[in-house]
């Protein structure tokens, strides 16, 4: 699970995240929406520990991220919108590198790495240099590497940019499958149709504040006359 309590972050005069409170239970796929610069990425970076909050508390998989940062991070997987991948390693070598980094045993890595590549349809490209892979294939490698150590919380920033329909379907199915098995997924996206389709709950953030949160039905009920998420989103974030 993810629990955020009164998170605040300033960048100079800019109040990037303002008293953010949120709880996402285990086995839920939460979609985090908001216009550009609303504070989505900063919130995610605070959850990963890459950015320190000015005030507030972050609990990830029942671990206080401030008190036990290393333990908390070991339970988290993070996939940014444009992740860098070592171009002169092969997918298999990249997975072995990730396994060592996450201190997985050698036997565990040797068993899981080929399996993850198989799940993502990358077995025949396991020994091709990453620089020779397409964007979609690289994304698959990144998902394989992130999920290999079986994190309890997955944070995904814009997962569908530049992907073909096959890859989008694969990742949607994968996120649903892992959520069913108890993983907590927090995903940001600008594609509202996808949020409507796969999100268990949806949160809308604007100017660092959570302005709406709930299931699609709850959001529709709370805002009469707005039957589509797009209308609601524009209404809440247009100033």
């Amino acid at each position, binding site marked *: 699970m993810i629990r955020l309590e009164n998170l605040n972050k300033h960048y100079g005069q800019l109040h990037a995240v303002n008293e953010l409170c949120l709880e996402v239970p285990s086995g839920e796929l939460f979609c985090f929406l908001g216009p550009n610069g609303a504070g989505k990425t900063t919130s995610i970076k605070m959850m990963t520990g890459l950015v320190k909050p000015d005030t507030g508390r972050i609990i990830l998989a029942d671990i206080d991220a401030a008190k036990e940062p290393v333990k908390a991070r070991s339970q988290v997987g993070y996939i940014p919108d444009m992740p860098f991948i070592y171009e*002169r*390693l092969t997918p298999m070598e990249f997975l072995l590198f990730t396994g060592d980094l996450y201190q997985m045993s050698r036997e565990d890595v040797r068993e899981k790495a080929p399996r993850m590549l198989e799940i993502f349809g990358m077995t025949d490209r396991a020994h091709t*240099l990453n620089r020779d892979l397409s964007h979609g294939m690289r994304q698959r490698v990144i998902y394989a590497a992130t999920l290999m150590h079986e994190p309890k919380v997955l944070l995904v920033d814009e997962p569908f940019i530049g992907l073909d329909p096959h890859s989008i379907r694969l990742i949607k199915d994968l996120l649903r499958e892992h959520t069913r098995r108890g993983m907590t997924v927090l995903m940001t996206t600008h594609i509202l149709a996808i949020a409507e389709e796969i999100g268990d709950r949806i949160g809308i953030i604007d100017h660092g504040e959570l302005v709406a949160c709930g299931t699609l039905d709850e959001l529709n009920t709370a805002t009469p006359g707005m039957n589509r998420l797009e209308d609601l989103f524009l209404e809440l974030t247009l100033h």
Partner: protein
Amino acid sequence: MRAATLLIRNHLFELQSAVRLVHEQPKLKVILIGSFSICWLASLSWLFYEGFDFLYRLGGAAFFLVPRLFTLFFMGLGFMLMLSGAVTGYANLFQTPEVRRLLTWPVPMRDLFYYSLVKSTLMSSWAFFFIIIPFIGAFGFYREWNLLMLLWSLLFSIPFVMLCSGLGVLLMLLVVRFVPRGRTLGLLGFLALLYATYSAAGYVRELQANQNEDMMVLVNFVPGLQLASYPLMPNSWMAQGILSFANNDPLRGGIFLVLLASSVGVLFLFLARLGSVIYPQTLQRQLVGSNVLARQASWPSRTLQAVFPGHSSLRAYGIKDVLIFIRDPSQWTQFLIFFGLLALYFLNLGSLGYNDLDPVWSNLIAFLNMFSLSAVMSSLSARFVFPQMSLESRTLWMVGLAPTSLGRLMLNKFFLATIALTFVGTSLAAMSNAMLEVEHASLILSRCLMPSVAFALAGMSTGLGAMFMELGPKTPAQILSGYGGTLNLILTLLTVILLVLIPGIISHMMVLGATFALPEGVITLFTCIYIVSISAFAGGVPLMLGYRALSQRDF
């Protein structure tokens, strides 16, 4: 040719803008580069001047030695230019993102080749003028030439550098196109190259056997002199051309200038013709063929996985960094060129007869060698170690979340850099000492010095790299050109001076037989303590500051 001309003009505009924007660069960087260039030109000119003065004071022998010195100097320069041309040409013709981008534009393939060829020639040769100008300048100054004559002599350099650089590009193009990639065929190619080298060496030996007595003596002293004096070598045309002007024979000099210029014309016409035929296929082969390379290169990966014990972040970074290093020609060629040239020089110390010199001289040469080795280690640590943390910032999405701290990541980088630098430094220093047969005390100091230099350089570059860590997709060149990169370069050079100079002076005084208040063993021990202390301070303090900076900043 219209597209090629446009592209070259565009590059010239970029260069113009870069010159205009010098004032926006960090002041420290501009001052450092400016003073370094002036000091370099002044000190090299002085050294060459002293050399010519020494030779001409020998009397008649100078008229025999100076022309040979010229041929040897330009041969060495010519080989370095060829190497530089080959490396730069490979990068410009096949590796730069610009080539891939231009392939999608309406630029004819022939124009793309011309443009890349001109760019490679310019990029690979401009720095050599910083060696040629002091050499010719010192000679002209010694012979009291007027400015016009000096400029006239310098004119020779332009076709010479173009010729050598063009030959390097030609060689590279032929190798990339025709050397087979398969292991067996590659091995056969390598054996053929060895045979060709052996045959060439035999031919040179045959030439040596037919020489007059004076030349035989000189050839035994100076390896490569015979090859350098061969009349069909461009370096020989260059040397004879300049000396003809010096000896008031401008007609003969002019003929050599025309010979050089026409050779350049023929070579570039040939390159243009050859390029338009083989470049498109070779480029395609490079663009689509890296999968083959990846499969071929999987054995180092398997070996490293088996050799590195346990499972830790140190192992992860060790394997990853070694694999990326051996698969990136721009990285390993720089290592190979710098340390390979030093190794070649150290291995030849015996054949130069330096081991038979007076111990005072061999000891002095040993410390000068250690200084040059440390200076190369310093520049390579600035190039490779300093940008490491900034480059890793791109992987924070994964590395930052691993159950390890960024401080630990920094220490991993430091350990790997120390191991690599220690290995290279101690091996080459041992090679130099063995060839020079240095005395026991100097040997102990050397064994203490090289690991200490490696520790200090690795610690300083890693620590400062963490303190001045830059986020975002930046290239190593962009990271190095900032304030932190410049500061690191200055501090590492100062550290090398502090570490090598004092032990060098003490060792030199001991060999000279100077009397100390303490026994020689105690002096050696104190010097070792000095080395270790300076090293611990220079490497340890930046590491601590870097560790602290990493724990305090946001990403």
